[in-house]
């Protein structure tokens, strides 16, 4: 199966500032891609380039075997069959719900239009609001109108720009599940942009992590979660906390013990970081000769998973400043006091080491 959307070597430079550089991406039909990255990393620009609102400096975009744009030509946005849900929904304030949904349907006969609108309104539970104006609707309803409107012209690709950022946090999850089911039902290929990784985990089949105009990693969310390919990806997605280690022959030496290095490719750097997830840490409150105190409680908060602690290394535990750790995240049901000394140990697992540079 060939990919529905192919992006090759996409670069965009605006006013001598590189927004996107040599980006490659391809997406199969029916896939939902979540695009994450800090604000200003170029993810919205990427959406605009696909939609036809930004000029490419280099590279090409192909949708369903049709060249949409390269550095010399560009299919006008209205001829691309790419739909978009805007962050503010961009509903036409002077039109009713029904008229908004019908806006992109002028090319069909009136009867067909009517059927299509009826179908969409029913599906998105908007039938009762067809004669209302956008400002009379709640945020969730407005979003459903935006979706119905974007789906009406049957786009080949749907773009969603931070679609859930205006939705109440409590409703967000429910809505995401609902919309995902809808997109799947229509077999819609979609790309959505967010800065919230949890939205990607709930909503997407594929995940792309971006930083400073570059694509860092592109894979399924679960794979990225298990195997982040760089310090940046793991750090941005907050997949765990960092434990600094010094490389010594085949060993990584840390304040919490030594770990055997299986491969030797990180040996050229002196300092590496071990990614530690809370579940990979074992906490011992009883401090004795077997369990020497090696960390102290720095911060406490209460979560639904029990107490959440940040641990940091003991003062005077080392003369090497780089080895000091802080904000080591761990969950426990045991109540601890601030600055209480504890013993903590890393469970044996497939260690993930990263060097901080690049």
């Amino acid at each position: 199966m060939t990919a529905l959307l192919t992006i090759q070597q996409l670069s965009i430079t605006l006013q001598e500032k590189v927004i996107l550089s040599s980006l490659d991406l391809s997406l199969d039909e029916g896939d939902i891609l979540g695009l994450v990255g800090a604000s200003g990393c170029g993810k919205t620009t990427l959406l605009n380039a696909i939609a036809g609102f930004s000029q490419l400096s280099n590279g090409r975009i192909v949708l369903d075997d049709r060249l949409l744009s390269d550095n010399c030509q560009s299919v006008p946005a209205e001829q691309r069959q790419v739909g978009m849900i805007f962050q503010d929904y961009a509903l036409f304030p002077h039109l009713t719900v029904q008229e908004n949904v019908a806006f992109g349907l002028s090319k069909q006969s009136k009867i067909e239009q009517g059927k299509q609108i009826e179908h969409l309104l029913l599906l998105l539970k908007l039938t009762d609001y067809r004669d209302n104006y956008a400002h009379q609707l709640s945020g969730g309803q407005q979003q459903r109108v935006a979706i119905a409107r974007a789906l009406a012209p049957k786009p080949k690709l749907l773009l969603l720009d931070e679609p859930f950022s205006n939705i109440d946090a409590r409703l967000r999850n429910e809505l995401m599940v609902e919309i995902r089911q809808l997109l799947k039902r229509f077999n819609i290929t979609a790309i959505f942009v967010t800065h919230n990784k949890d939205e990607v985990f709930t909503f997407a089949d594929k995940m792309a992590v971006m930083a400073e105009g570059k694509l860092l990693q592109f894979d399924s969310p679960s794979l990225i979660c298990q195997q982040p390919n760089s310090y940046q990806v793991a750090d941005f997605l907050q997949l765990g906390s960092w434990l600094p280690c010094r490389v010594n022959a085949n060993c990584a030496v840390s304040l919490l013990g030594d770990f055997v290095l299986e491969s030797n490719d990180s040996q050229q750097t002196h300092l590496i970081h071990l990614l530690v997830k809370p579940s990979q840490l074992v906490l011992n409150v009883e401090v004795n000769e077997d369990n020497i105190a090696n960390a102290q409680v720095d911060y406490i908060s209460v979560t639904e998973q029990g107490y959440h602690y940040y641990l940091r290394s003991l003062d005077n535990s080392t003369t090497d400043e780089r080895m000091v750790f802080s904000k080591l995240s761990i969950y426990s049901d045991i109540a601890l006091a601030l600055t209480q000394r504890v013993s903590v140990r890393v469970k044996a697992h497939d260690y993930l080491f990263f060097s901080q540079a690049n």
Partner: protein
Amino acid sequence: MIALYSSKTWTLSSYLIALVLIVPVLVMLVGGLSASTHLFVHLWQTVLPSYLENTLLLAFFVVVLTLFFGVSSAVIISTTDIVFKQQLRWLLLLPLAMPAYLVAYLYTDLFDYAGPVQRMLRHAFGWQSPNDYWFFDVRTLAGAAVMLALVLFPYLYMLTRGAFEQQDQNLIRASRLLGLTAKQSVLKVALPLARPAIAVGASLVLMETLADFATVQYFSVNTLTTAIYDTWLGYGDLGSANALASVLMLLVLFVVLAEQRSRSGLRHQSARPNVKRELIQLSVSQQIMASVFCWTLVILGFLLPLTLLIIMAVQYSDMAQLSVLLATGINSLKVSVIAATIAVLIALSLGLYQRLHSDKYRHVPKQIASFGYAIPGTVLAMAILSTLGPLDHWLNESAELFGFTAPGLILSGSLFAVILALVVRFAAIANGTIASGIKQIPQSLDYAPASLGVSLTASVAKVHLPLLKPAILMAWLLVFVEAMKELPAVLLLRPFNFETLSSQIYQLISDEMLEQGALGAILIVMFGLLPIVLLNKNKEKV
């Protein structure tokens, strides 16, 4: 996001429109500045210094007075619990509808030696002649400044009040929590925050003052505008008139630059302006003082002149007057309707060009086209005469060359010149109103139609124009009213025997016979009220 529409015809026509609107001024500036130095030396040795002095003094007095009237009333209305606040809020805008020359005439009539006030005083105190007592003379430079200030202060009132209402109330609250009293926080936080708006208002007042012709003419105060008028119509000296106009234009340019600079400071407006301001509680004596101040402005700037006009109309109107009124009224309507329509069409074209076109310099045509508002009517008239005159000659000569009968002064001697002047002068108002309407359309609505497969023309027709309807109406009305009121440009450019309401009223004022035109004057005031009422209504809806 960047806009992506690109059309050569659109670009070309936008620049062409801008060019037509700016060329007369360039021709005049070139003509004026390339005038022989002898001419300037002569003017400088004779009249120019006193004209300049009068112009600058008048401008200074008017700005000081309007600052006092406008800013104080805005502060009172937006920060205190003055009684009849809701009524005063809009009443204070009404003087804008009153042309300054009408106020000037009416007050002169009222306070002159032969006027009712002095007659009454003489009667009451038994005075026999002007030597027996002192009474102020309205027909002076100071008098003209007061007249102008009485009708121009609403600019400052409106902009300052707007700035106050847009302010982030949390800033005021923060200043209170940091220990300022309510009054101190007005002086130390709210007023400084409103400074850019006040500066913009003051520059608008300055521009209007520099452009004023009829008031100073009536008071025989020789300023640059009256000098231009006299030099051209009195002595037929186009060179000197152009030179004087260029000097005035340079003065105006400074004001424009100042205005642009202060406008750039208007940005720090709040996203949370809707929180209710806590009002300063006035004591009884303060309440009385504030009320007297505000009501005096309303009465002197609007209610009293209107009453005087109505009394005149009731006493002196007859059928003959009505028929003259009808004829000139139709002329006024015709000219104003055409000018307003053209100005709005231009504003729409240039405004949407700036919004939707992908060109990097897409804001340029609109900026050029908006320059005309700064140009006083007298200057503009000179500019158009010096451009269209030669053009007419050239047309006639070419026509004769090809064996046609010469068409005569079809450009400079026809309504074309009047309408061109009105469009050049008031395009900026239309541009500004339409531009702020466009600004209120969220940027994403430009892109949404394309993402739904709808083309540019269809999206302008189905999205932008319907959303701009209120702005279009407002822009049209504002230009229409300004065109109805415009005097000097019409006076200098109108075809022979063509009278508009304003030119006729000016003639009657010059002949001290306004009674004959009281009905027309009332009509102009009433038309002037339309946009104010509409503006006020729109504000309240929001």
